[in-house]
């Protein structure tokens, strides 16, 4: 078995790693790089708990090979708060109690951030369909959707003033 040697960018930092060809990006993030914020809920792309962005595209890390990260730009939940404070989505999730056990939360936050970057003023329906790939078993989605809509409103207001 020959390892793949990969050079990539994760949350803005240059990162190098070795991985087996069959290792997924999720395996690499969690087991080789210690970035355990992305979770494995199913390993088959059905639950969204491993959501990350790859060159700005929302994907399931369990369906990307680690080797594919070569030369690409990856963003995970660990990069969402910018070191100066929480992202508005993160704050709104706390305010709205949009998490109970919290296992789906990293994936949902990454997915919601990707949504608002593309569509800063989504409707409730648009939020629900965008997040259909992120399973939550605790909240029934109500407070999650409210938090995303509220964050969108706050970010839009901030942009207007900014």
């Amino acid at each position: 078995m020959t390892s793949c040697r990969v050079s990539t960018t994760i949350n803005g930092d240059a990162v190098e790693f070795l991985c087996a060809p069959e290792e997924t990006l999720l395996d690499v993030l969690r087991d080789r790089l210690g970035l355990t914020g992305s979770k494995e809920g199913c390993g088959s792309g059905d639950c969204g708990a491993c959501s990350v962005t790859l060159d700005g595209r929302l994907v399931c890390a369990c369906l990307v090979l680690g080797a594919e990260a070569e030369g690409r730009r990856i963003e995970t939940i660990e990069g969402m708060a910018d070191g100066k404070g929480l992202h508005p989505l993160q704050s709104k999730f706390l305010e709205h109690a949009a998490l109970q056990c919290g296992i789906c939360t990293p994936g949902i936050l990454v997915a919601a951030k990707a949504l608002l970057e593309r569509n800063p003023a989504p409707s409730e329906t648009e939020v629900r369909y965008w997040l259909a790939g992120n399973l939550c078993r605790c909240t029934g989605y109500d407070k999650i959707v409210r938090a995303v809509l509220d964050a969108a409103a706050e970010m839009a207001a901030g942009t207007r003033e900014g």
Partner: protein
Amino acid sequence: MAPVSKRPDPERRFKQVGTRPLRPDGVDKVTGRAKFGADFVLPGMLIAKVLRSPHPHARIRAIDTSTAEVLQGVKAVVTRDDFPDPMSDETMTGEGDESLRDIVRNVMAREKALYEGHAVAAVAATSAAVARRALAAIEVDYEVLPHVTDVDEAMRPEAPVLHDDMFTAGVEPKPERPSNIAKRYDITLGDVAEGFAKAEVVVEREFKTEAVHQGYIEPQACLASYGEDGQAELWCCTQGHYFVRNACAKILGMDISRLRVTASEIGGGFGGKTTVFIEPVALALSRKAGRAVKLVMGRDEVFRATGPTSSTSMRVKLGATADGRITAGQAELKYQGGAFAGSPVQWGAMSAFACYDLEHVEVVGYDVVANRPKAAAYRAPGSPMAAYAVESVVDELAAKLGMDPIELRLKNATREGTQAAYGPKFGPNGLVATLKAAREHAHYGAPLGPGQGRGVASGFWFNFGGETCVSLNANQDGTVVLSMGTPDIGGSRAAQCLIAAEELGIPYDKVRAIVADSSSLGYNDMTGGSRVAFAVGLATIQAARGLVETLCARAAGIWGIPPEAVVWEDGHAKPAGANAGAFDPLSLEDIAKVAANTGGPIAGHAEINAEGAGVSFGTHLVDVEVDKETGRVSVLRYTVIQDAGKAIHPSYVEGQYQGGAVQGIGWALNEEYVYGDDGRLQNPGFLDYRVPVASDVPMIDTVIVEVPNPGHPYGVRGVGETPIVPPLAAVANAVAKATGVRMTTLPMSPPRVWQALQAAAGVGPGSGPEG
């Protein structure tokens, strides 16, 4: 100190309880810092994998691990030979009593593999790839036996029998031949023959529901580290790390004190993580290998080999007079609990008619085994299925009587003093309040369009107290840390901090809570049974009041007055009156700062077995639209109205209502275990095990009713389980209104609804109103 006075004070105005501050563990969870079961690592740790039976029923003649053991990188292999058979009838109390012999057999098959997925061996190796190769090298000699997965089939005399020593209990005389019926329960009140004789209208229906899974997003995961001195540490996601500790210690023959279990954050449980599956295996491997072992389940293993709930076959009969007084209720409930005894049929039987004030009740329940994974608790275990059947029949009764479904329920509702069929008399409770609130709610009067229908259903859960220990320590800067022993599955740290802050009169932000490991506190029953807000709250209140007593005594010492002359108000010690002396109030910080000089560190603690849990009733409203050409049911609007007694943190109470309702919607519409004729599970993944996604459901409106529980100083009632009880029937009742067809099989997936519509229209085989 003396136990806390239980009765709630109706005059009390809370300053913090009832508000919505941010949860103290929230930032860790939204940043990905929080550590869940699979997030731990130890140096040199091995990766474990489990070999599972491909057969639903087979005698295990031999297991040959010799090739696997010598593979490069394999450090330990375990089988049934590594788990001594407990020779006693001992039970372990988790969410209910489990036989230790059954737990050991479920963790690792002994004489037989009893379901597809049953663990047969396990391997710890230097990598997952090596572990998988090792599994492939293990040879198991199976004698395949005929299997049975359906509950009705399993009860037939000619069914393949799982256990040669299972003779139905609760039956006189004891049966001569073994069967798959572990136990027969019955609950009787009055005489149903007499009750039905008085009835002018009778409705009797049969129902079948398929098994569903709790569907927690986090698969079971643990990391075990067993040392050469017989001491071990275990990190795992669980609802009850004390249970895990005790069970693992028993199974591995360890002193309890030598095993320290740390509960990670838990990614959902809903009752499914109240027992052990992989933890004893990881410890046994670690002991054998002399190294730490990490064992994480894959999603397919979770579906095949953890604890779904029961599939059921039920019959319910209700009779009423023409003016709507229900005269008798009768039910027969058959629940299969997987390969071992212990389905929740007893709770189903007890809760079936709990919403109704009936003079004559008879419920017979059968606990049946079948070649399926051993059932574990799932949120109000046993109650949703029974409620589906009873609330559907009540709905049909209302239609036959020409009565509004809420009016019929109000006419017969359980009130304070109602005699429950299962024994006690109900204390004050919120059922009537929720029914009235439902009737007055804007949802109930909103107009409906074509193809749409509205359903109502009520539900009930007992709620529990249980063994609980907390410790509350005051820091020198006036902050306080609460150590609790119940994992935080959805906001309980926040609630307990609110309670402690309220009692101590200090700001919420000065109180932090941790979930302590199993060595740090006395025994704690699990997070389950809707007990944490109630029982841990009670313990926190007691601990806080103990802390306050000590603070007052220290202040008294500082002032040189008797302790009885000091009161605690708004976070300060004050002289009780002008006579006590003119001293400036001392804050918690003032007193804690000098604790070393006044006797040492200051703490309060409590070790209780909480009693006085209050029942929680709920009533749900749902609007659906049915596409008659495809049978697809869409949920348009949903309202949960439930009694919380006293909502400590309303956002998290609402969260329980919403989450339980959506699980119930999934159970009603699309979730089911699909078995082939080969006894194998066909849908062990989230692709074909269809939990609701965000676009499947609308906003879930909630109304928190508060009828104080007299058994708690704040009036708190557990709320976590009741929300999953009404939705099955509420949705079925809505579908009946939308289509005129009564669905008596769950889930109401589109092909089933479509077929029922066809049959009702007289098209195709089996025409008739049965669904």
